[in-house]
Structure formats: structure tokens, C-alpha cells
């Protein structure tokens, strides 16, 4: 157990020392879970380093979270590893904060091909523009859906219930 915690600390320390200017926060949530918050303008540098130096070659998903009271959106990248057995049980969450109006961030498709559909979904559901995505268009909603991005918190669906 102790040995594994050291491994998680090693990743945190390495990330902090490699990117002292961009990484705002890096913490161990619990055994096997890490969250690294970084400056949104430097996604590609961190992502490339994560894949090539750390071996986190698998992007599990891209999530958006809306915080209307703080006027911000968070974009989360869930990372894991396929090819390095010793890293397979880790889930590293990369987190970036975006402004709520006109949110945009670089596309990670050039780093992880699996970002293709995940970014299309987040673009559609939260309106986040992924700069440099090869084919950024709607994915899940109906062709005639013309409302704002549906997953934003101020889009209410009273027919589903109250929140």
C-alpha cells in the first residue's frame, strides 16, 4: 500500500516540477485517483507530456461541468493507461477552468485519437469549442434542436422535475 502511494506522489511531484507555471493544483483524491488542475492555454503541452513521458495513453472521456454561480465551466479529461501495466489501475483527472461565455480550449485529438467523439459530445452539450478538432459538429441531439447547449445548468426541463 505504502509503495503505491509513493507512486501517486511521484506523478504529482513530477507534474509540478515539470510545469511549475501551468499546474495550479495537483492532489491525490484517494488511493489510485489523482486530480491535476492546469491552466487551459497549456493543455497540449501537459497532455503530450502525460502521454509520452508518463505513459497515460488512454483518454477515457471528456466531461464538462457547469458552475453558473462562479461563472465558469470545468472541462475534465479522465486518463488511464493501457500499455503500462503498473499504471493501469490509476485514473488521472486533468481539469481546466474555462470562462462561461465563449468557452474554448485546444483539441486533444492530436494526442489521444479517442478524444474525437468525446470532444464532439462536450461541444454539443456544453458549447465548448475545441480548437483544431478535425470534425467538430453535433453528435447526439436531434437535427432540429436549436436551443442552447442542453447540459448547461440554466437550461431547465421542468417536465423532468425540479432542482
Amino acid at each position, binding site marked *: 500500500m505504502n509503495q503505491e502511494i509513493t507512486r501517486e506522489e511521484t506523478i504529482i511531484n513530477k507534474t509540478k516540477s515539470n510545469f511549475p507555471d501551468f499546474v495550479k493544483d495537483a492532489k491525490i*483524491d*484517494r488511493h*489510485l*485517483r489523482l*486530480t491535476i488542475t492546469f491552466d487551459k492555454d497549456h493543455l497540449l503541452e501537459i497532455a503530450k507530456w502525460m502521454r509520452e513521458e508518463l505513459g497515460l*495513453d*488512454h*483518454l*477515457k*472521456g471528456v*466531461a464538462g*461541468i457547469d458552475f453558473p454561480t462562479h461563472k465558469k465551466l470545468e472541462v*475534465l479529461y*479522465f486518463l488511464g493507461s*493501457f*500499455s503500462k*501495466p503498473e499504471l*493501469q*489501475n490509476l*485514473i488521472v*483527472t486533468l481539469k481546466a477552468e474555462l470562462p462561461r461565455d465563449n468557452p474554448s480550449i485546444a483539441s486533444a485529438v492530436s494526442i*489521444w*485519437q*479517442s478524444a*474525437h*467523439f*468525446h470532444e464532439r459530445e462536450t461541444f454539443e*452539450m456544453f458549447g465548448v469549442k475545441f480548437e483544431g478538432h*478535425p*470534425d467538430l*459538429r*453535433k*453528435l*447526439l*441531439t*436531434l437535427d432540429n434542436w436549436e436551443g442552447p447547449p*442542453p*447540459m448547461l445548468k440554466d437550461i431547465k*426541463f421542468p417536465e*423532468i*422535475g*425540479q*432542482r
Partner: protein
Amino acid sequence: MTSNPPTSNLTISKTDDSSTLDVSVGPQHPGSGHVRLLMRVDGDYIVSIDPEIGYVHRGCEKIAEYRNYVSNIPHLERPCIIDAIHLNWAYVLPVEELQRITVPPRGRYIATIAAEMNRIMSHLYWLAINAGVFSGHTTIFMWAFGDRDLFIELAEWLTGARLTYSFLPPGGPRRDLPSGFETKLTKLLNYFEKRLVEYDRIFFSNPLVIARAKGVGVLKREDAIKLGVTGPVLRGSGVEYDVRKIEPYGAYADLNFKIPTFQEGDSYARFLVRFEEMKQSISIIRQALEKIPKGPIARKAPLVAPEGEAVGRVESSRGEYTVMVMGDNSDKPYRVKIMNGSFRNLIALPYLIRNVHVADMPIIYGSLDYWPVEADR
């Protein structure tokens, strides 16, 4: 990987290039669910394909923000009803982590038994429809569906429902094993093990099936890692990756099992991965029935979850099923993010279904065990 955005809603439409045509497969149920595959064909060859999904999108993640933690259980297992235990479990693991409750050992064993029964049922459904019907093999369709029903009947006895079990609320399973369940299940497993030999004879070793599936839709190991596919698709390409082994949940840490992997990466290898997984599931259930401890099955869980994020994952029948739940001190989640096997494997469709015959498309599609409702959520 760029794709062709659909230019028209017609079934067959012209393209800019006079040698190709756009042919639409679906969205009316092309065999397994509502998905539209827009194929650009040059004669009998598929040049490229654009999967257009979302026909069964219901906004599960949005609805989950409006429901309390317990009402979310029946709701969030609906995307893949043939694999309900795994979807249920993947959502409950992070909720339990937020609420800081642990399931008693007997509860974990019961959940494991139910999950492995569910894996067999899900793989039998795949064998019947996605492998059997798509390759024109009607015998295996009847056999697998018939045998699947025997498992469904036992699952109904255990949980009270045939498919949508809602069996694992936070804290542990709803019911203990009924008396006599273990004997019935052991008997069924003995029967099913003999049936698997016959499945092998009539389907997996059938020269016609091998001729259609072997060497078709090859996904190399490096490409599987690069594309980020998961589950049997990944293991069919030679990557040994299974959440049950790497981050054991339930009772898997106490049980002995192998992760079937094949190096070939073709459709036939993906067939065999699922076939071998059913054998492993039989062995897992037998061990779990033998080792199951006595004691309480569940603990009481609070209705509210504190602030914070938790990520949990299980190995569902279609691959790693990861769920992020964010609590905000209320009885409803602030955000639920589902990262499932079908949506992650979607990227393999445009990658594999190109430069192949039109007739190979159903086999490749079937070998991925893509479940549109799970992907669309």
C-alpha cells in the same frame, strides 16, 4: 480520422466523385439498435463510413441531475438493459465512495454472482444477435436465446425482474440469495458448460463462421491502444486489460480467473474473447458460491451525498464502464458523467469499416458488440 458528413437524407445519394455512392444503413434497426451508418461505397467496397448516432439519446446525464440518488438507479441502468447489473454497479460505486459506506462481504459476493450471470446473459445476447443473426447463422440464434432465458429466470428469482434489476442500491444488494438458489444455479452452470462445447462445435469451430470472421476487420494492438477501445475489443487485440483484475471491486480480489486475450485482433478473435469469458464467468460463479461468507448483506446508506467528486469503474460486458459522480450536499447529484464501453468503441467503427466488402460490414459491426442505447445515453 475525418468522416463524411451526410449530404442528404436519402437512402442512396450521389457524391461529388462519380465513382462512389453514399448508402445509408439504418437508422431503422439494422440489426442491433438505432444507429445510422453512412457508407460511401465504390462498387462492392466501402470507402469510408460515418456513424451517425444519437437516435436513442435521452439525456440520461441531465435527467440524473433531477433525480435523487436512489431514483437514479433504475434510470441509469436503462441505457443497456441486457447489462443492467454492471451499469447499476458502476453508478453505485462512486456514490458509496462519496457517502463513505462499504458493502459487507456477503453483499459483495452476491453482487459478483449477479454480475457474472449478467455477463453470461449479455454475451449470449451478443452471440444470438450480433454474431449469429449477422452472420446468417440462425441455429446459434435459437440456442443462445433459449439458454439465455434459463439465466434470466434465475435472475428473476434472485432480483424480482427479468432484465431491469435495480438490484444494487448504495450499501449492498436488495435481497439475499433465495433458499435453494445455489443448487439451481450450480445445476444450470453444469448444463451450460456442456452447451458451450456444442456452441463451439456448431458456431466457433464452424468453417463457415471462420471463413467469414477470420482476418476480417483487423485491429492491431498499437491501433487499439491509440484509438482507446475497451473491453473484449481491446482484449481481442492482445491488450490484457480488465478492471476486475487491475482494480478489483466486489469479490474479485478473492477469486481466481484468467483474462482471455487474443493477439490476432480480427473479428474472430473478438468472438473468441467473449466465448472464453463465458467459461471464466462460470468458474467465477462457482468459486463465489463456494466461498460466500455468512453475515449481513447490506448496510444502511444515507440519502444525501456530501460535496466532492468520485470516479468508479467496473468491467461491463462491453468494456470498462467509468462513472464520475459529483455531490453537492443534497439528495441529488450535481453531475453524473458516464463513460461507457460502447461510446468508446464507436471510434473503431469508421476505423475498421473501410476498404472492406459491404458483406463484411455486419460481421465487423457485430464483433464490436456495439449497443447504440448505451452509447447515446
